[in-house]
């Protein structure tokens, strides 16, 4: 059986709210005055109060009913969910990245600039030459001094064909090498160091003409020393003493030319010879 569900009147609603202490202060004063003066309102108020008391009594009685034992057991024996255990650890620095508006704008401009620069470089340099350059790291590592050493090692073994123009034609050598290398020079007399001029050659080192003056030891050991010169190279600003492939070399530069004295790595006086040659050439 279900009782009809009629909507309460406005007065009933106000009185019900008044019973629960939910009426506004103004409504409360009006209802208190109404209850004093209006008998029908008092009847309604009493009826609502009586209904509340009756219902509360019924509902309180419900609590006296025994709770099913299986329900209690079910709850008591229910497994608790596993909790993630957080082990103690050192506090970590906050990783949150929250750039401000100005920072974001700056980053955008920076990326725009970098992107534009990369695009410009790609457009200015065709990819093929770049690829050729990057795909041949050995040629990058090999500098012009390696060419000088290679020529020396090749010709110092050619006893009968050491030079293209022999030492008996110094004028031709001067003209020829000066014209082709662009370097004005003299043929140094290194007899004080025990060296005799043996002739000259013109070779290329790293694409540039290189004049080579050959000298031989006067003590009969057939040791060959080469004095080479080329137009000034920007990468030889300071003197170099080095040994490459058992070949010793000493390099120095003037404003007009770069000189390299090459000889066997066993030649202990190579730097002395270079010092003398630098003053005489």
């Amino acid at each position, binding site marked *: *059986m*279900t*009782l*009809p*569900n*009629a*909507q*309460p009147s406005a007065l*009933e*609603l106000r*009185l*019900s*709210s008044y*019973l*629960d202490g*939910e009426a506004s202060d103004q409504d409360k004063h009006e209802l208190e005055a109404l209850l004093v003066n209006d008998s029908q309102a008092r009847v309604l108020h009493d*009826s*609502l109060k*009586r*209904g*509340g*008391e*009756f*219902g*509360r009594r*019924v*509902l*309180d*009685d*419900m*609590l*006296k*009913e025994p*709770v*099913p034992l299986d*329900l*209690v057991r*079910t*709850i*008591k024996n*229910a*497994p*608790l*969910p596993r*909790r993630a255990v957080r082990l103690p650890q050192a506090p970590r620095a906050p990783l949150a990245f929250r750039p401000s508006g100005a920072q974001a704008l700056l980053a955008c401009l920076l990326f725009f600039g970098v992107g534009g620069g990369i695009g410009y470089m790609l457009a200015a340099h065709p990819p093929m030459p770049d690829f050729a350059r990057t795909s041949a790291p050995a040629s990058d590592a090999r500098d012009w001094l390696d060419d000088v050493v290679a020529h020396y090692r090749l010709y110092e073994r050619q006893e009968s064909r050491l030079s293209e123009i022999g030492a008996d034609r110094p004028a031709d050598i001067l003209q020829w090498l000066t014209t082709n290398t662009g370097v004005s020079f003299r043929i140094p007399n290194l007899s004080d160091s025990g060296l005799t001029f043996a002739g000259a050659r013109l070779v290329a080192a790293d694409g540039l003409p290189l004049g080579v003056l050959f000298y031989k030891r006067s003590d009969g050991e057939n040791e060959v020393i080469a004095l080479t010169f080329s137009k000034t190279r920007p990468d030889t600003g300071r003197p170099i003493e080095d040994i490459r492939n058992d070949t010793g070399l000493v390099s120095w530069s003037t404003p007009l030319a770069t000189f390299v004295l090459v000889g066997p790595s066993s030649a202990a006086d190579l730097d002395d010879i270079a010092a003398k040659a630098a003053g005489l050439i």
Partner: protein
Amino acid sequence: MSQSTPTTDIRRDLVALLPRLRRFALTLTGSAPEADDLVRLVCGRAIHKSHHWKGEGRIESWLFSMMRSAWADDAKKRRKSDAASQSADLNAPAGDPARANYLLLSLPEGLASSFLLVEVEGFTYKEAAAVLGLSKDVLASRLCAARLKLAALGMDVAERRA
């Protein structure tokens, strides 16, 4: 019992609250078996989600809200069980639990739970409306209607006794 800290075993709180949970479930379902099933379901969920309960406010509010939501989710069960209603006997002696239950369950749907939360559990209109998913006005209307119906039922019971 109204406050519970997260470190407390929620199962103890649930067992202590069982009579009140069953009573609220009964106002929703209208039958004891369905009320017990609903309580079992909600208690299981509460244990599973116990880490969500931060110990703020009344745990009853959380449990009642879950219960109302679980019951509302099952639309088929929203209709009160006729069998349960028919099993209760209005002519049973006064003070018989079956009769008391019947009187309560005979209220139109939604009135008993509103009445229980405000009149018995002491919830404010705002709290009770939040638990039941109603507006304050609808709750006030249902509460007033429940009081009027219960007043009529009380009169009827008094006349029968006389």
